[in-house]
């Protein structure tokens, strides 16, 4: 036997089950899964599906912490199942449950639609007056590294819902938008290419806005991508208050313009040319313009 096999230990996956067509209420079911070092929870669930119960339902896709599908509650904390090794979170027993603060579709599948509706309601796209350029771009908008840095970390959000599951305010207040939509609202509020500050400020001025955040900070603590929604919400409050007091510089900014020829610079010294394209007929976007 290999060294890996010697270190394999049995872990009981205590999985919350619920089928709305058959069950009156959720219940827990135990499965014993042999766990070698490095096994992620998602692999453990696949093991259960293949060996014990093919009806076990969850949502997953990329298996590499990018798609945000497999958020679930592991030993009481929201995690991505594909991103969490069993031995990081479990001793002999691993409690696996769907994300709280969401309705349950089945077993470990939360209904993320309300979260995505709230996200959409805050108009989380770059919105500008020059609609034709947005829909059929002729060039890029100019943005400085500093302007990019203001929102960059919030753009890493994968909409997995872990922050929503950890939010104590959202647990009692369904009107509150929650950390993910608000962090994304701030991401576009502060994006220098966006030209709809006042429209956003109006959208965020009610109960859906950031005002009911208690700053528990759990959303940031559980984010698997290192995004800090709690910070975004506090920064959003500051920006909206400054706007109300007519002190916001961001509100007065014109949205970023298109790149001008003088903004362009050649490649830095010492950087070799890109290799030739291996696909016949392919051209670089840079040479097209």
């Amino acid at each position: 036997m290999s060294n890996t096999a010697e270190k394999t230990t049995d872990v009981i996956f205590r999985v919350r089950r619920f089928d709305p067509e058959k069950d009156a209420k959720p219940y827990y079911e135990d499965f014993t899964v042999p766990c070698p070092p490095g096994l992620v929870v998602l692999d453990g669930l696949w093991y259960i599906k293949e060996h014990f119960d093919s009806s076990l339902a969850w949502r997953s896709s990329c298996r590499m912490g990018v798609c945000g599908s497999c958020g679930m509650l592991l030993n009481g904390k929201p995690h991505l199942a594909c991103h969490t090794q069993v031995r990081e979170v479990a001793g002999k027993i691993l409690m696996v449950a769907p994300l709280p603060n969401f309705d349950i579709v089945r077993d470990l599948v939360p209904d993320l639609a309300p979260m995505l509706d709230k996200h959409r309601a805050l108009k989380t796209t770059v919105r500008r007056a020059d609609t034709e350029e947005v829909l059929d771009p002729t060039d890029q908008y100019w943005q400085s590294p500093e302007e990019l840095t203001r929102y960059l970390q919030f753009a890493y959000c994968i909409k997995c819902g872990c922050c929503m599951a950890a939010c104590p305010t959202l647990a009692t207040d369904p009107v509150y938008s929650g950390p993910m939509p608000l962090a994304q609202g701030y991401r576009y509020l502060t994006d220098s290419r966006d030209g709809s500050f006042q429209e956003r400020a109006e959208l965020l001025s009610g109960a859906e806005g950031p005002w009911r955040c208690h700053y528990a900070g759990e959303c940031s603590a559980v984010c698997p991508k290192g995004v800090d929604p709690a910070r975004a919400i506090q920064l959003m409050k500051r920006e909206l208050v400054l706007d109300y007091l007519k002190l916001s510089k961001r509100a007065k900014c014109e949205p970023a313009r298109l790149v001008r020829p003088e903004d362009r610079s050649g490649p830095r010294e010492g950087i070799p040319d890109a290799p030739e394209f291996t696909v016949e007929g392919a051209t670089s976007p840079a040479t097209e313009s």
Partner: protein
Amino acid sequence: MAIKDTKLWTWHVLAGLIIFVLLGLHMLTMHLNELLPIAALNPAGGHPIDWANVVARAQQISTMVVYILLLGVALYHGLYGLRNILMELNPSQGLRGLISGTIIFVGVVLFVVGTWAAIAVRSTALGA
């Protein structure tokens, strides 16, 4: 049209800042007089709640204004916080209106009573 939370929250924060200053003034007058003695706050000397000091302060219009202002901002700050807590209990739309209305009513009544008391104290002190 309902007042937007942006405005209410901004005034909540500003009220907190004003409370910090005015409550600091109150603490300076009533509790920190030995550490930082300021003659204008306790003109008769001695303990801040000595009768002579109480009457002297009550005669000052600035004292009356400060306490009426402190009452107003403290009521706003506290009652807005209470409203937020109650709103998080997820009441129905009708109940939300009732909560807001009751809180505004209670706030206005307490402010009127407190303001009347502050003015009455000054009138009494001026007659003393």
